[in-house]
């Protein structure tokens, strides 16, 4: 029997016993469905609001409806044109909300209140073309002449100080980074708290003495963290897959260059990567503080320590979502306790250089290694101390291994 075998056995028990919980399974299935349905629903709403209904009424020039459709296509808008027999009926259609604006008698645009610029230019350019076509026909011009007169003039625009072209995926990236930061924060804290609760539970049930009589305290702590972490990984993975399925199923509006599925997949990859690091870091912190208490009622008095450690990272991210990561966020993202939230955010918005990611990952791993040692020692010092809360320092002192422990 080696400590590694024992870590594995302990981790397996944590995973299987907790995965049997109906609450865990129910929440997982419920959240997955919620994500798929949510993405589907949002994309339907987005898709529908893109279609604009326009109307024509009264004495319209010939071919007006076709011109409106052609003009809308040229402007990249999706419109439906409804023909009304009289000008009055067309005006009523606006009042009833059936259409957004109507073109009456080929020369008057009627709308409820100010319509969008796009709608105005679609209707007015269609009206211009239709009226000119009538004039050209009356003048007896040939079809070919007409096409060349009416063809849109190609105008080149030269800007002396061009604006940065907006990256098409920018908005999707901001949404993905906010969503994944939220998932990271909640799952890291949730599963970290499970570790603390598991440790307290074992002290409260007194089984800890039975276990520690046959396994090292560090094996118990590490095994527990790994087992619960595997469960967290399952949850994050399943939710991530649900999000990708939702993105693939959803009838997303096809905007140029926007590949929402690949943005989503990349975000899910980094989500899982940083969940593993962030969870390990915080779960050992939770294990350390959990070891100092013996009753679940005392949990709040220690669980705030990891919570206030991670919170600044989340706040910094929220405040820089609009403006993008500033210098402070860049520095903070290299601080190990904040990297798991801020680094994936910077990666998702395309701000992090590869070396910065590498250094942050190394620092986080180093911190985890230190926290494992602190956590195991504090746990050894406090595991059999029941009753009142033990101070961290006291637990640390009494957790030193004796001279001849092998």
């Amino acid at each position: 029997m080696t400590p590694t075998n024992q870590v594995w056995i302990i981790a397996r028990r944590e995973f299987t016993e907790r995965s049997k919980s109906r609450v865990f399974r129910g929440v997982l299935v419920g959240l997955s469905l919620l994500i798929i349905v949510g993405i589907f629903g949002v994309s339907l709403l987005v898709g529908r609001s893109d279609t604009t209904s326009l109307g024509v009424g009264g004495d319209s020039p010939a071919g007006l409806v076709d011109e409106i459709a052609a003009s809308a296509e040229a402007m990249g808008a999706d419109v439906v044109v409804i023909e009304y027999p009289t000008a009055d009926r067309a005006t009523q259609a606006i009042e009833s909300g059936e259409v957004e604006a109507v073109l009456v008698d080929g020369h008057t645009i009627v709308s409820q209140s100010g319509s969008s610029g796009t709608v105005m230019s679609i209707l007015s350019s269609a009206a211009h073309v239709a009226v000119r076509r009538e004039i050209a026909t009356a003048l007896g011009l040939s079809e070919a002449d007409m096409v060349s007169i009416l063809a849109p003039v190609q105008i080149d625009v030269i800007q002396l100080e061009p604006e940065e072209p907006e990256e098409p995926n920018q908005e999707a990236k901001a949404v993905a980074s906010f969503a994944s930061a939220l998932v990271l924060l909640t799952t890291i804290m949730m599963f970290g708290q499970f570790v603390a609760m598991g440790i307290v539970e074992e002290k409260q049930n007194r089984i800890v003495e039975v276990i520690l009589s046959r396994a090292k305290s560090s094996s118990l702590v590490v095994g527990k963290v790994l087992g619960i972490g595997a469960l967290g990984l399952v949850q994050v993975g399943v939710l991530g897959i649900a999000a990708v399925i939702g993105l693939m199923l959803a009838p997303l509006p096809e905007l140029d260059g926007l590949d929402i599925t690949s943005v989503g997949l990349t975000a899910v990859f980094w989500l899982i990567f940083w969940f593993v690091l962030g969870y390990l870091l915080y779960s050992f912190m939770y294990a350390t503080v959990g070891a100092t208490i013996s009753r679940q009622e005392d949990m709040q008095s220690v669980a705030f320590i990891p919570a206030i450690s991670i919170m600044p990272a989340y706040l910094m991210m929220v405040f820089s979502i609009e403006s993008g990561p500033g210098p402070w966020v860049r520095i903070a993202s290299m601080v190990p306790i904040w990297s798991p939230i801020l680094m994936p955010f910077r990666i998702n918005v395309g701000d992090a250089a590869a070396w910065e990611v590498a250094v942050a990952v190394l620092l986080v791993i180093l911190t985890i290694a230190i926290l494992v040692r602190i956590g195991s020692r504090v746990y050894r010092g406090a595991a059999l101390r029941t009753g009142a809360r033990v101070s961290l320092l006291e637990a640390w002192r009494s957790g030193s291994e004796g001279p001849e422990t092998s």
Partner: protein
Amino acid sequence: MALRDVSFDVHPGRILGFLGRNGAGKTTTMRSIFKLVQPDSGAVTYNGQPIDLAQLVRFGYMPEERGLYPRMKVRDQLVYLATLSGMNTSDARTSTDMWLDRLGLGDRVDAKLEDLSHGNQQRVQMAAAIVHDPDLLVLDEPFSGLDPIGVDSLSEVIREFASKGAGILFSSHQLDLVEHICEDVAIIDQGEVILIGDLNEIREEASYRRVLIEVDGQLWAPPVSGAYEVGTGSKRHHIVDASVDVEQLLYLAGGAGSITRFSYETPALSDIFQEAVVK
């Protein structure tokens, strides 16, 4: 509890009763075997070697503070503890089912611990200490909370392990039980072992004997020097010097009337315990 001079041996195949008043240091001593407390100096050895993990998992421990996972199935947790002690899964299952069967829990293997009665939980706790077939059993107050049938079946299990060559160390306040089961005793007082050895030898070597003589139905005080009365009610008897001759006692009693009861014994464990710790 601080320990000062706690030295004793547990021998293979023998049962050592570990006695002492509350707070004398019994639990601390037992915990130090499992490295649950670290002694500042001194060593716990097994076959002369320091105890490493491979050896530690061959020990079975029943802590004074009982505890198991309340919401885990009985069989699952015993299999878990057995594998944690180095058994492979199939041996662990076989051993678990065998012990649960023997302890009368064969039909409750899939019940959660918290759904069992207190007595049955105690039986599972006992199984947790022995399911991995240990070489050394350390039982801290194993009989407390057991009904007479539980006491009998635990005594039987302890004897069985001893007959297989396992060493057994157990603490108890129930001196009559210890006297019944143990071959060796160790008495600890204020963190110090004050008496250790083979129980029968200790009794033989005692400087006094307990006698209970009734003449004409009345307790009779032996007219020998140094004899005195102890106990109350039905437990009243006399203590005489070990050098007093039994036949002479019998002769004297016969001269006093008709002997209705005569017993002459080495001191009971309770006498030895009283003498050792009260002083």
